[in-house]
């Protein structure tokens, strides 16, 4: 305030004199330069390296489900670095804990299917064990024809909201940012449907988007919802 007052007074006297004074003031004014330096040093920022560990590929349906659901909250190395030789029961109860204790969006069939997959690729189970085959009958839900698709249910059950918010970036881009990017793209819906169903990486950074376990109609409903934001 006092600076402003003195500047006004100076400006009203001699124009040239005031310019000189402003230069001098700017040069010697300690509060201003200190405040500026303080702004620079109050912010600390880190950039974390991306995870390079991926889940072992498998034709078991639990593979895609694990890609999609486990990585909402944690990287794959959490799973990769568990003890060797755990059986199907142990792995399935570890997945159940994710739902029970940490609120992971997993249905009972998701839990069984992911448990079966993990115990085959990391544990003692074999892909042709009868218990693995029966636990892997994870159906991709198909809406009855004409049935209304509840986008909020799809967002929750697929864990979309773990990585995406409407307004702000979490792990993935905000839905509003996606809508803005595709605003004038006439093929936007089909592009988003492909991204939702197949996953992808590189469009928004190096964090991979896992393939979502939804059918064409569900993906379309999600794409329409996102583009309306």
């Amino acid at each position, binding site marked *: 305030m006092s600076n402003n007052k003195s500047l006004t007074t100076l400006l009203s006297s001699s124009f040239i004199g005031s310019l000189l004074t402003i230069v001098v003031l700017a040069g010697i004014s300690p509060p201003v330069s200190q405040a500026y330096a303080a702004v620079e040093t109050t912010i600390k920022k880190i950039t*974390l390296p991306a995870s390079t560990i991926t889940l072992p590929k498998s034709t078991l349906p639990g593979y895609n489900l694990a890609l999609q659901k486990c990585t909402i*909250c944690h990287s794959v190395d*959490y799973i*990769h670095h568990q003890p060797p*030789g755990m059986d199907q029961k142990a792995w399935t109860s570890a997945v159940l804990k994710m739902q029970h204790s940490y*609120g992971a969006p997993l249905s009972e069939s998701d839990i069984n299917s992911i448990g079966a997959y993990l115990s085959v690729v990391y544990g003692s189970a074999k892909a042709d064990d009868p218990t693995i085959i029966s636990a892997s009958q994870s159906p991709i839900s198909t809406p009855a024809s004409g049935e209304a698709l509840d986008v909020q249910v799809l967002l929750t059950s697929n864990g979309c909201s773990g990585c995406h918010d409407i307004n702000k970036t979490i792990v993935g881009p905000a839905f509003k940012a996606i809508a803005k990017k595709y605003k004038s793209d006439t093929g936007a819906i089909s592009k988003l449907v492909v991204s939702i169903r197949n996953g992808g990486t590189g469009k928004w950074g190096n964090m991979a988007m896992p393939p979502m376990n939804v059918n064409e109609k569900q993906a379309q409903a999600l794409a329409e919802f996102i583009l309306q934001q």
Partner: protein
Amino acid sequence: MADNKTHLVQQSRRQFLRKASMLALGASPLLSLAATDNNEGVSLAGGMRPLVKYPGKRDLILVHSRPPHLETPFSVFNESLITPNDAFYVRYHLANFPTEIDLKKYKLNINGAVNKTLQLSLQELKSMAEPVDVVAVNQCSGNSRGYSSPRVFGAQLSNGAMGNARWTGIPLRTVLEKAGVSPEAMYVTFNGLDKPVLPTTPDFIKALNIEHALSPEPLLAWGMNGEDLPFLNGYPLKLIVPGYFGTYWVKHLSEITVLDTEFTGQDSYFMNTAYQLPDNDCLCVTPGSTAEKNRPISTLPVRSFITNISADDTLSSAKPIELEGIAFDDGSGIKNVDISIDGGLTWLTSTLGESLGRFSFLPWKLTVSFAQKGKATVMVRASNNNGEVQPLRASWNHGGYRRHAIESVAINVI
């Protein structure tokens, strides 16, 4: 003595190089360097844990990357009694934590059953009272979990999820007294800036009972070994609970709530459901069974390590060798550290070094001579003023928590 030590270091370096070159067969030299000698006996489903570089840290062992969990390579404990900031282990639970902190916006909130809620900037905290220092061990509840037998799920840690640092801050009770704690207060809870990814996941909140919170020990610390806290260890403020496991040492501390009720609800998960031990004399169960009752993990049991030799080292029988290591406990005070070089048949008393405080690593050393050539097992066993002695065999619990059995190092004598 110095000669002996150099000798040991050179031996283990040679051995390290030999192991590295064996691994390099069929792989690129860079790959083999990235994956050498850091499993330390812990076997994993998906193979070795790599060494990784994170902000403010030297190469540490990767436990998991999102959220970050990094283990200190054990050789660091032979470098100095104080664990350097860039080597200190890192452990988060929730992936939605800040990677940018602006001190202009940062506040510590004190609320709940208090006369006056407070919102303090770091600068206000720093000027509230004369800063105090404590050297204290921060050890993860699951340190050494990878050695559980039978194995248990969870981060498969070797012995490096611990560290010893000089923490600088003000006593927790200073801010509690300023806020004016209700006479009905029962617990004080602590929350940091880290958040769960999903709203259905519990937040990471820990609680201390009111007597403990108002005791002189817990600190609100901004300094670690004379510097700001490393970002990944909880910058700008961390709760320090000397003698207690690291789970209570809340990072990026932002909210302190005084409760005049029990701590319940979804966000009490990490206090009331996780980090629990069987509530019995041994704090253990027979594998496969469950305890009738559990209680939250709390203080550090007495523990000791040998830091200047490691498994498969080759030592000479030609001259005496000075063994060195560390011991620590919950602050009761280390009474003795005994060494056996014959697999536990006979024990020798080591010389304890200068104490940096009762919550710190305490150094010990002992010069020994190996009379016989061949394989030998060196063991270290500490006891404390509270009458605790390290057990020969580890007890078992579902979380693989609180391991503190006598450590053995199998070596070769030539």
